[in-house]
């Protein structure tokens, strides 16, 4: 409103009802304003409109555009273009202005994002009650100030107009009151029946409050059964722990202490929970800038290429069965008690020659300073083995930390779901309440969830979207986004964060806490009260011995979730007895001090090895079989984020594919089977089949293919529907990660896959520089000597920059291509999504892109990542060619882009050797959807059609910092300005700052002998430079290879 008079999304902001509602709120309440807006016409309109105009802009190819509509739109534009008279505008103050609240200044609130049973602590930027940007909480153990791409995109999730907006009863619009009255009767009946026939299905729950509520629920309905299912769950991890220790434990790794890392198909740098923290720790051990603490060494075994494998010093691509064998071989060579090599295959024998021995030597040489990590997708046996290896190597307590599980109620979820299905068949399920999750889409295909679900008399679904499951339910209850609700959650180390809302629910949704308490017969409680009450420890009733009904059916008995939640809070929030103080401190700091779980040292079961060996033997290891590997999509995970355009369009780290998934196979396998990229093949497993296009992926293990989950949604919303192929269709409960001996046959069809990078070779050009640690140690300047830079002589007098001179250094050793920077930039700078068609036309708008190059043979290629953004050349080729001077050079060396001066000749883009400029060929920005207007960063101009744009080094952040500094009459301090990409980077690969300040981190980084400028011989003098990528291969193996 008032302060935003300079923003481009004024329409939303001056939406009178919005401001009115906001205006009369005071203090903490002010976000309530938005809830009432949800009642106003503007919002109703949008809610009711099935296809808000403009939203389709994303996906429609030009040809299908509505000609007349655009006529209108562009005429308006033309009007603006000419010197039209400015329309009169209103300015709307508060009635009572909240205290400590300066209009025009953003405020930050600490909260946390729970995902897949783990929380990441956040600081969220808020402009007048509108959260606009998510940042990591530097104090939070799972974040340390960084976040991943998914967390960045959650802001778009909040404002997604396709989120469920109202209670549905049999798919008809209803209200919470109608639900409450309807359910009141049921509650009576349940109580009478002790909850017999009442079943709950939740995702992994790690909110202490929610867990406690579930416990009460089970107390109220002693015979009710609580099932859990997380499609990309960690059953293998749990069962592995059980196998090894006879109990569930949480395993966390301290990569900041590990000098040698052996990853058994573990993608701990991207898709494994905790990856943000792990990335930070991992890269801390291979810093080449600043003072160098030596460098860790990563050995990776994997079947499907992952970013972890890509940055590994030694990577072996093996078929799944061979991975297990190799792991056993290593275990045996390490002399882990009870472990002997299991089976063998040519591939493993080959490794046995040099790879495994030197790995083993390396591990043994670093006892207590190494770590063995098994991937979530590996079988429990492998996890047990990993535990044993870590024990044998004395890593427990140093690099491997065991604690009690942070999730409320660990159990084998696949079995838990199977049990539910079984009970439905045996007619024991009268009411099924699905609390979060979307089982109708994600449940194993063989369980036929959708079919069975409909046999249940009363089906209630609570979820953020009106999704596949909601569609089959009698009642659908819209759940609030985490930025809209009070809750709490635990990080992987147990640290508790209070989740506080940044804004009142945009639509008629409620937090899960309130839904549960409705089910529990207390419909009036608010999430705020529930969470606070829990932390005040005002809980009485202790947990009943077994909330699980003694339900018949052995598997059920085993899996009907014994509720292992202690009474009372898991940790005290009060600071020396003062709850209020503690509460506010927790809110302020974003976590409860000292709530991390204490480490424990479980002892290995005697019989684990035999059990594990038995399990291995059970899994078929046919040599010629074609295995299908299921993996979570690196950006969409299990599919819950399918409707978030940012995540659909951000190129997947390795394939650079957008808006699709594919069957990833090695070029050799493709050749052998006569497939080509974009051929459609029919993949079959246990008489389930799915048609999916092929993508030849260098570095993929032969004889198997990878399918990413999470695509092919049918009811995710306008953006995510029918994008890619739903591979849950062939994912069965017995083979959640690996479908051994699947079939795959080529069909006659072909399917267009779109990628942002069509050329993967560096063509022998000097683009990504890389070497080995050994070379560097032998001669610091080896790079400069290898690449002789020509002397650039200028005819003109060189300009010297006084004051600040902004620059960036990107450490290629650290970059893991996790895409966090790409999405963070998109969020910070209001960058639009253009859709598959336009990406195919080469019109993706990302300001920062991560290039990926392959080198060497396609079976085991070297992979290089290079984040590329505007280089802010001191002698920028783009500047001299703009006829209207829309891109010019600033005092501080910024290459400035003036949107409002740009007429769009595109000459600058042509003349940019780095091709980092992006042009709005069409009206890509959605100017219509009200919620998007609220989402945008008011400090950055929203670009319209026909305008060039590019990375600005987050000039809006520089400016606000400069203004503050100038008011205090000082220079900007190092670290005071951080670009969005640098701030979010989990590996701290990007350093930004003032290169004139010799003490700044960036200046120091640029002093490194590894520092080089891209295409330096052109004389563009880029301000962004790169630090040569260093690997730390084992000398023995280098010789061998």
């Amino acid at each position, binding site marked *: 409103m*008032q*302060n935003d*008079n*300079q*923003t*481009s999304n*004024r329409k939303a902001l001056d939406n*009178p009802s919005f*401001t*009115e509602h906001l*205006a*009369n709120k005071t203090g903490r309440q002010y976000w309530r304003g938005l809830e009432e807006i949800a009642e106003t016409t503007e919002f109703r309109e949008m809610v009711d409109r099935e296809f808000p105009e403009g939203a389709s802009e994303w996906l429609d190819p030009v040809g299908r555009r509505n000609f007349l509509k655009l006529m209108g739109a562009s005429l308006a534009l033309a009007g603006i273009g000419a*010197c039209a*008279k*400015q329309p*009169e*505008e*209103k*300015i*709307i*103050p*508060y*009635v*009572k*202005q909240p205290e400590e609240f*300066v*209009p*025009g*200044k953003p405020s930050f609130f600490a909260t946390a994002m729970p995902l897949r049973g783990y929380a990441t602590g956040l600081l969220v930027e808020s402009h007048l009650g509108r959260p606009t940007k998510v940042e990591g909480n530097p104090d939070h153990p799972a974040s340390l100030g960084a976040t991943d791409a998914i967390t960045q995109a959650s802001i778009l999730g909040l404002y997604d107009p396709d989120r469920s907006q109202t209670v549905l009863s049999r798919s008809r619009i209803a209200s919470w009151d109608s639900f409450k009255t309807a359910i009141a009767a049921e509650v009576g009946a349940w109580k009478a029946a002790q909850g017999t026939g009442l079943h709950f299905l939740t995702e992994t729950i790690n909110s202490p409050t929610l867990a406690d509520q579930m416990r009460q629920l089970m107390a109220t309905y002693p015979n009710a059964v609580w099932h859990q299912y997380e499609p990309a769950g960690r059953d293998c991890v749990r069962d592995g722990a059980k196998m090894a220790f006879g109990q569930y434990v949480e395993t966390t790794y301290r990569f900041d202490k590990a000098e040698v890392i052996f990853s058994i198909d573990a993608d701990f740098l991207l898709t494994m929970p905790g990856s943000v923290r792990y990335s930070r720790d991992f890269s801390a051990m291979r810093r080449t800038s600043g003072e160098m603490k030596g460098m860790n060494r990563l050995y990776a075994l994997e079947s499907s290429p992952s970013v972890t494998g890509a940055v590994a010093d030694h990577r072996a691509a093996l078929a799944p069965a061979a991975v297990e064998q190799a792991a056993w071989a290593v275990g045996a060579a390490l002399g882990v008690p009870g472990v002997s090599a299991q089976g063998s295959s040519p591939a493993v024998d080959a490794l046995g020659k040099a790879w495994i021995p030197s790995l083993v030597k390396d591990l043994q040489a670093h006892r207590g300073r190494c770590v063995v990590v098994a991937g979530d997708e590996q079988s429990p046996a492998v996890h047990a083995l990993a535990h044993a290896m870590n024990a044998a190597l004395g890593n427990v307590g140093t690099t491997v930390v065991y604690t009690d599980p942070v999730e409320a109620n660990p159990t084998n979820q696949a079995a838990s779901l199977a049990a539910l299905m079984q009970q439905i068949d045996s007619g024991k399920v009268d009411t099924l309440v699905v609390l979060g999750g979307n089982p109708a889409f994600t449940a194993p295909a063989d369980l036929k969830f959708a079919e069975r679900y409909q046999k249940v008399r009363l089906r209630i679904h609570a979820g953020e979207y009106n999704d596949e499951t909601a569609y089959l339910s009698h009642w659908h209850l819209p759940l609030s986004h985490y930025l809209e609700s009070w809750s709490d959650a635990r990080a992987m180390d147990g640290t508790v964060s209070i989740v506080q809302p940044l804004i009142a629910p945009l639509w008629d949704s409620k937090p899960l806490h309130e839904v549960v308490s409705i089910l529990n017969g207390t419909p009036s409680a608010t999430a705020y009260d529930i969470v606070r009450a829990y932390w005040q420890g005002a809980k009485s009733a202790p947990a009943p011995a077994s909330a699980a009904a003694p339900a018949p059916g052995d598997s059920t008995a085993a899996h009907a979730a014994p509720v292992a939640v202690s009474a009372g809070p898991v940790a005290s929030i009060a600071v020396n007895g003062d709850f209020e103080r503690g509460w506010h401190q927790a809110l302020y700091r974003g976590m409860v001090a000292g709530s991390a779980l204490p480490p424990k040292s479980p002892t290995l079961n005697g019989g684990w090895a035999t059990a594990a060996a038995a399990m291995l033997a059970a899994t078929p290891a046919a040599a010629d079989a074609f295995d299908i590997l299921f993996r979570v999509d690196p950006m969409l995970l299990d599919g819950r984020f399918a409707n978030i355009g940012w995540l659909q369009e951000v190129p997947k780290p390795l394939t650079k594919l957008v808006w699709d998934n594919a069957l990833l196979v090695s070029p050799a396998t493709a050749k052998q089977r006569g497939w080509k990229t974009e051929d459609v093949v029919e993949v079959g497993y246990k008489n389930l089949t799915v048609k999916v296009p092929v993508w030849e992926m260098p570095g993929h293990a032969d004889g198997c293919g990878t399918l990413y989950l999470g695509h092919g949604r049918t009811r995710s919303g306008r953006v995510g529907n029918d994008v890619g192929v739903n591979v849950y269709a062939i994912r069965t409960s017995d083979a959640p990660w690996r479908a051994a001996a699947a079939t795959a046959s080529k069909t006659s069809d072909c399917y267009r896959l779109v990628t942002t990078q069509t050329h993967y070779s560096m063509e022998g050009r000097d683009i990504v520089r890389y070497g080995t640690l050994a070379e560097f140690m032998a001669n610091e300047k080896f790079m400069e000597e290898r690449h002789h830079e020509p002397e650039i002589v200028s005819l003109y007098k060189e300009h010297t920059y006084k*004051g600040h001179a902004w620059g960036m250094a990107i450490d290629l050793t650290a970059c893991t291509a996790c895409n966090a920077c790409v999405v963070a930039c998109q969020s910070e700078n209001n960058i639009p999504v253009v859709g598959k068609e336009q990406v195919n036309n080469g019109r993706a708008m990302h300001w920062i892109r991560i290039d990926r190059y392959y080198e060497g043979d396609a079976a085991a290629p070297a992979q290089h990542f290079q984040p590329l953004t505007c280089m802010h050349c001191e002698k920028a080729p783009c500047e001299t060619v703009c006829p209207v001077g829309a891109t*010019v050079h*600033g*005092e*501080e060396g*910024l290459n*400035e882009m*003036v*949107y*409002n*001066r740009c007429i769009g000749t595109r000459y600058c883009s042509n003349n940019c050797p780095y091709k980092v400029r992006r042009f709005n060929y069409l009206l890509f920005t959605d100017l219509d959807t009200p919620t998007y207007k609220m989402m945008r960063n008011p*400090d*950055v*101009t*929203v670009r319209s059609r026909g305008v060039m744009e590019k990375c*600005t080094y987050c*000039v*809006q952040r520089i*400016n606000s910092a400069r*203004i503050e500094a*100038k*008011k205090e*009459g000082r220079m900007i301090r190092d670290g005071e300005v951080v670009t969005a990409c640098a701030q979010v980077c989990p590996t701290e690969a990007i350093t930004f700052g003032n290169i004139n300040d010799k003490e700044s981190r960036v200046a120091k980084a640029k002093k490194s002998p590894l520092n080089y400028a891209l295409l330096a011989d052109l004389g563009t003098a880029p301000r962004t430079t790169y630090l040569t990528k260093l690997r730390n291969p084992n000398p023995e193996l280098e010789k061998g290879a």
Partner: protein
Amino acid sequence: MAQLFHRSSNTLSKVSIFAVLFLIAGALAFLYAYHNSDYMTYVDVPREQPVQFTHEHHVAGLGIDCRYCHTSVEKSSFAGIPPTETCMSCHSQIWTNAAILAPIRESFRTGIPVKWTRVHDLPDYVFFNHSIHVAKGIGCESCHGRVDKMPLMWKANTLYMQWCLSCHRDPAKNIRPRDQIVTMGYKPSEDQAVLGPKLVNEYHVNVKQLTNCSICHR
């Protein structure tokens, strides 16, 4: 055939050559004038407001400091429009029944804010920051004119880019001591030609940087 052109047309043609030139020049001049006219710029055009609030009375008459109402002018990009309660802080005591203040009381009672008509409105791609201007000695008057002489608020300047630039290119013309920021009708203690550059120095105004595009556009 008979000549179509009379002898006179020779002269005529000569004249017309100039006539055309003048016509073009005239058209341009007109456009320029139109673009700078009050009609386009609203300069000196008092704007209707829901409440006939008079700065003249509150500033000149009562001598209330600008910052009493425009509270965030020193802290934030936005100077701040006073919330209804600020008005009521006095008008709950005096003029409690004045008809002219009815909308204010109404707003205070219902909690629905007063919708003022924006007088100074920059394009959406311009990012102006009050606090830094004030901190560097640019007085309210320099842009907003003699507010103390405005019964109803009007624009004293076009707020066109060239107007902004005229100062960004040479702030010495307008800079004044910090303690004189809110003074209306300020007279420099010494010759501005001397004082100006001195203050520019003293306040570390980086004049070269002031004309960078990204200072206002991002």
